[in-house]
């Protein structure tokens, strides 16, 4: 801020012209449009059925911190990896693939509760989730699914470790079988329940997609799991290739669905920074890996491995970006007072 000039000032043509200009503006417009004279929002806003209560958001924004979208990503990938690992084991696929899938699931089963606890603030708060089981609360169902999944996936990986290190024995085999069955059973809902979690809320951009989000998140998780397995070296597996193509095509369709549906509640997914992020996530999850994988499949090229590696990396990044974008879109959507008031927005 500059010091006020206390020396007497000599009026000149310029200063007088400015004063007349101010007077004219005040006379004609009723207000002066200059820094410092306008209180926030002046001229005083009015409440109306078209503008709501001064455009103050009706809904509260999600209170979740950065751990939650990351948890959505980790949980989705881990759940799908457990399913892939179990089926691969049951159908007698390559042992390395089975082992890698188990490690991904186990890593996710450790990381997931850690992320949730970080969001809640302290470990004892997570235990409160296990006071009751409430089928009508997706958060409660999810917490119990996570516990079942974590137990199963970590037991499987531990048995795997014991078997590799000390040789297989009956108790180890029992733990491996039981853990794997549990991680398969819980992995299926674990890979996509987060879609239910945000779909069944009051946030318009989320609940408008309640019927699609779980499948979308599940396929995104599968895409990430396949990508991780491929980056870990399982690039010869035909099955992974098929799963990767399937998941990427599903994500293409999902992107198309979001882009073509006309509904004002979906604006945060299409416009503004949250729309850009959603699109970026969608392109990296859908068209990019789909194209790379199809090229690799049909050309049978020598560089198939590097194509699949790129597709895998793109799918993983896309899966993570997609979750971040959906949470971000939820924030933007909660700020829009028009949707819950039934006022259609113009874009």
């Amino acid at each position, binding site marked *: 801020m500059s010091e006020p000039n206390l020396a007497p000032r000599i009026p000149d043509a310029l200063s007088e012209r400015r004063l007349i200009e101010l007077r004219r503006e005040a006379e004609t417009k009723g207000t002066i449009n200059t820094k410092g004279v306008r209180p926030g929002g002046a001229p005083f806003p009015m409440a109306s059925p078209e503008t709501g209560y001064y455009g103050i958001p009706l809904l509260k924004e999600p209170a979740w911190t950065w751990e939650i979208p990351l948890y959505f990503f980790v949980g989705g990938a881990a759940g799908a990896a457990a399913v892939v690992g179990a089926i691969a084991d049951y159908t007698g696929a390559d042992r390395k693939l089975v082992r890698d899938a188990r490690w991904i699931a186990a890593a996710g089963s450790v990381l997931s509760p850690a992320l949730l606890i970080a969001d809640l603030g302290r470990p004892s708060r997570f235990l409160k989730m296990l006071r009751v089981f409430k089928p009508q*609360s997706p958060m409660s169902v999810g917490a119990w699914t996570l516990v079942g999944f974590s137990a199963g996936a970590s037991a499987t990986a531990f048995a795997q470790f014991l078997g590799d290190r000390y040789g297989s024995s009956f108790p180890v085999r029992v733990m491996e079988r039981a853990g794997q069955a549990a991680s398969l059973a819980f992995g299926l809902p674990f*890979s996509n329940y987060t879609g239910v979690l945000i779909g069944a*809320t009051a946030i318009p951009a989320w609940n408008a997609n309640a019927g699609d989000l779980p499948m979308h998140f599940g396929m995104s998780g599968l895409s990430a799991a396949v990508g991780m397995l491929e980056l870990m070296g399982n690039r010869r597996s035909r099955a992974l290739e098929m799963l990767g193509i399937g998941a990427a095509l599903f994500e293409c369709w999902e992107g198309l669905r979001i882009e073509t549906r006309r509904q004002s509640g979906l604006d945060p997914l299409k416009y503004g920074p949250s729309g850009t992020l959603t699109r970026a996530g969608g392109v990296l999850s859908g068209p990019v890996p789909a194209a790379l994988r199809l090229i690799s499949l049909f050309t049978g090229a020598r560089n198939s491995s590097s194509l699949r590696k790129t597709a895998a990396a793109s799918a993983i990044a896309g899966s993570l970006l997609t979750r971040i974008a959906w949470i971000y879109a939820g924030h933007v959507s909660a700020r829009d007072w028009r949707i819950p008031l039934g006022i259609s927005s113009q874009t």
Partner: protein
Amino acid sequence: MAITAFLTDSTLCIGCKACEVACKEWNNVGEDGLEWSGFSYDNTGAVGASTWRHVKFVEQTPEPGFGGNAPELNSWSFSSDVCKHCENAGCLEACPTGAIVRTEFGGVFIQPDICNGCGYCVVSCPFGVVERNPDDGRAFKCTFCYDRQKVGLKPACAKACPTESIKFGEIEQLRGEAEKRVASLVGRGMKDVQFYDASDSSVGGTHAMFIVRGDPRSYNLPPKPQVPTVYMKKAWRSSALGALLLLGGTIAAFLADGNRNGR
């Protein structure tokens, strides 16, 4: 135990904010910053973790011939907002810990010693009432003065209200009173008076009812609030389909894979 309710009559509200102060004092809720919003005399904005009662100052286009307003002056009404204590409460359904319960008086109450701060109630409230306290992470909202009701007292806001704009009592009785009040106001020429209790939506009615002038949307009262459980069926169906697709797709992919080794 009588099922109780609030009836907040904005035609009687004088915007004194005694309810806000009474609520904060009785419940020991801290102040939440003093900032000029530029929105009439409302510098709080909305109910939240630290504002359980909130007076809205609604400046609307003139309604000539009412209340002695000069035709060019805005009509100005006040309305004290509060948690709606829904019949089908989104927050209560969503709470994974069982911290949010329905009290014997019909209100929705968050037990602070059980709340673990998961924040799911925040996104499940169709009225945007519940909020996480940024300092300790738990969710807070109007308790319907459960402690006072238990010993037979009125909630603090209703007791402090100088004009009986905030009425408290047995719910059916208040509904009857509201009906009579609306009829009487309309009879006196206040044709734009409306009763709001969201009973025609999936929320199934509220324990905080309102009489407002003009469109409830001007008061940020949603015309069709939806309890999020209505989306549950669709979402779980998609989840089941997704799980089937994942399982079926994985089985098919691995069975079709000719390069299987092992067994």
